[in-house]
């Protein structure tokens, strides 16, 4: 008679657990339905709000601050534009236009903010009226020289987007996205862990499993890997849905360039590894805490404690003033959030990221080892 080998047993348990959980409508709703529906719905709502705001912007007169010769300014300041003066970044004017005749050429500089619809409208208006400004300038020069106006040569237009919101938006994304992903990680680990661990006891299948010839360690390994896979799947699905929603929003708003993220593939890969370590830790601790539960209700109660404690650590990592330092690199989960945050704005210190990864892997190893030891005891599963 063949003795079962560890590899095929772990693989069989992993496959069976995945199959079972993915056939559960609750799990599907939780892992796939939520990200696929929630973020696009959120985006749709935001687009509606943005369109209403853009509609308002079209009916409002763009406020221009024009500097340069008065005769050249004239074509720019006709209705619907209003001339005024003030700060662009404070929203007192919508665009600042500087007209500089320099020798044979007319220099035109426009400063605007890409994330304000009214400012975008002001920039469009200036671009449309630039030909008329140049025609006036050429006519004036030709009259002064006593010769006919030369053919028009488009004036060089210099545009400067002075929008602080570009940087601010990136900052907000870097604050919110990592934290949200980690909260998803905590919530996503709860259901499969309870199902895989407590479900075995509640449904009376533990006995069957324990008297099978399968060695216990690979059975436990298969179960932990299944929960890890599902949690990672949920994190990736949520990250994908969030990313796609954000990208679509930016495209609608005028191009992906309006989000000033300093992404680098290396930093993102390192942050991904750290997130993987955090997922392992969440799964290990969740399994350890949920294992003694004798019912689904008890399991969910115990798992919710992990979610709550984890959420506190995640929020610590999300606080605007918290930064990745040699101290915070040792705060589990907060460190993972901070690594991802730093990676998103291109400010990741690799040394600290590796430190956080080493700490998370050590804790994960400890939690999984304790969880595995507890779970492989027959009396644990039998209850």
């Amino acid at each position: 008679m063949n003795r079962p080998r560890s590899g095929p047993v772990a693989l069989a348990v992993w496959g069976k657990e995945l199959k079972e959980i993915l056939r559960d409508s609750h799990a599907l709703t939780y892992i796939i339905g939520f990200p696929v529906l929630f973020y696009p719905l959120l985006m749709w709502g935001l687009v509606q709000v943005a369109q209403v705001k853009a509609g308002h912007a079209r009916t409002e007169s763009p406020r221009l601050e024009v500097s340069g010769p008065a005769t050249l300014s004239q074509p720019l300041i006709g209705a619907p534009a209003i001339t005024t003066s003030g700060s662009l970044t404070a929203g007192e004017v919508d665009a600042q236009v500087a007209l500089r005749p320099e020798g044979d050429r007319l220099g035109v500089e426009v400063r605007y903010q890409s994330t304000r619809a009214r400012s975008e409208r002001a920039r469009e208006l200036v671009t449309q009226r630039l030909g008329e400004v140049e025609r006036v300038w050429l006519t004036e020069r030709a009259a002064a020289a006593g010769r006919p106006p030369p053919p028009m040569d488009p004036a060089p237009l210099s545009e400067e987007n002075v929008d602080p919101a570009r940087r601010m938006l990136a900052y907000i994304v870097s604050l919110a996205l990592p934290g949200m992903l980690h909260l998803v990680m905590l919530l996503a680990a709860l259901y499969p862990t309870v199902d895989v661990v407590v479900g075995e006891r509640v449904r009376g299948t533990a006995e069957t499993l324990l008297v099978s010839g399968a060695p216990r360690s690979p059975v436990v390994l298969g179960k932990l890997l299944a929960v890890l896979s599902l949690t990672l799947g949920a994190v990736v699905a949520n990250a994908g849905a969030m990313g796609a929603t954000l990208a679509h929003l930016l495209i609608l708003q005028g191009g992906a360039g309006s989000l000033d993220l300093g992404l680098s593939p290396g930093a993102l890969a390192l942050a991904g590894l750290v997130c993987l370590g955090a997922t392992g830790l969440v799964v290990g601790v969740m399994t350890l805490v949920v294992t003694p539960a004798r019912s689904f209700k008890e399991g969910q109660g115990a798992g919710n404690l992990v979610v709550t404690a984890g959420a506190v650590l995640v929020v610590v990592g999300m606080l605007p003033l918290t930064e990745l330092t040699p101290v915070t690199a040792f705060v589990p989960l907060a460190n993972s959030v901070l690594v991802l945050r730093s990676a998103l704005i291109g400010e990741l210190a690799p040394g600290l990221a590796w430190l956080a990864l080493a700490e998370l892997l050590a804790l994960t190893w400890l939690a999984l080892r304790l969880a595995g030891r507890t779970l492989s005891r027959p009396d644990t599963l039998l209850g």
Partner: protein
Amino acid sequence: MIDVQGLTKRYVHPSTREPFEAVSGLTFSAEPGQVFGLLGPNGAGKTTTLRMLSTLISPDEGRATIAGHDLQGDPAGVRSSIGYLSTTTGLYDRLTARELIAYFGRLQGVEDPRPRTEALLDRLDIRRFADVPCGNLSTGMKQKVSIARAIVHDPPILILDEPTTGLDVLVAQTFLEFIEEARSDGRCVIFSTHIMSEAERLCDRIAVVHQGRLRAVGTLEELRTQTGEHYLERIFISLVDGT
């Protein structure tokens, strides 16, 4: 095939906190092609004995060898040699009958469980609901799938813990036929029951257990001679009342 010597299991009573012996110095043996019955009232120690023999719990004293494997020295070897069934044994509701049988085949080290699974689907007449999730099966169908699950690795020993308790007559009949078939296949079957008619019909040898102790062991004829009673029910009462 099964050799049990002085098997003992102690627990602490949950309410009085007093230690007590759920099974005390049990000794018996069973051979291939034999159905060995553990007969006793509720709380006699039958389930504890079978759980020890299937490595679910460890004995505090005594030893046992199952198909040549020492219970405590080689529990994995014991598990590979047994098929275990009880009425409380659950199935995975979201797996189909076919998937479940194949899954346990893999857990038992069957290299390619598919041919064996297909053969069991035919043998136990479960092919027509082979692709139905176990959660949607009737009790009788579930029991057939349980049987297939227990024998997918072709074990020489079957340990059945009150397999017919709570089942209707027709489903119980399926079990009894399965036990008879296992005996004719040369397997050693050890099963616990408190239903006298089942023991009378099936068992080649019977052990009467009461309050964790073995009261008598032997064939039905030997027990009749020992007690002077004819019917098993009377034999059982005389052995248990002699406490």
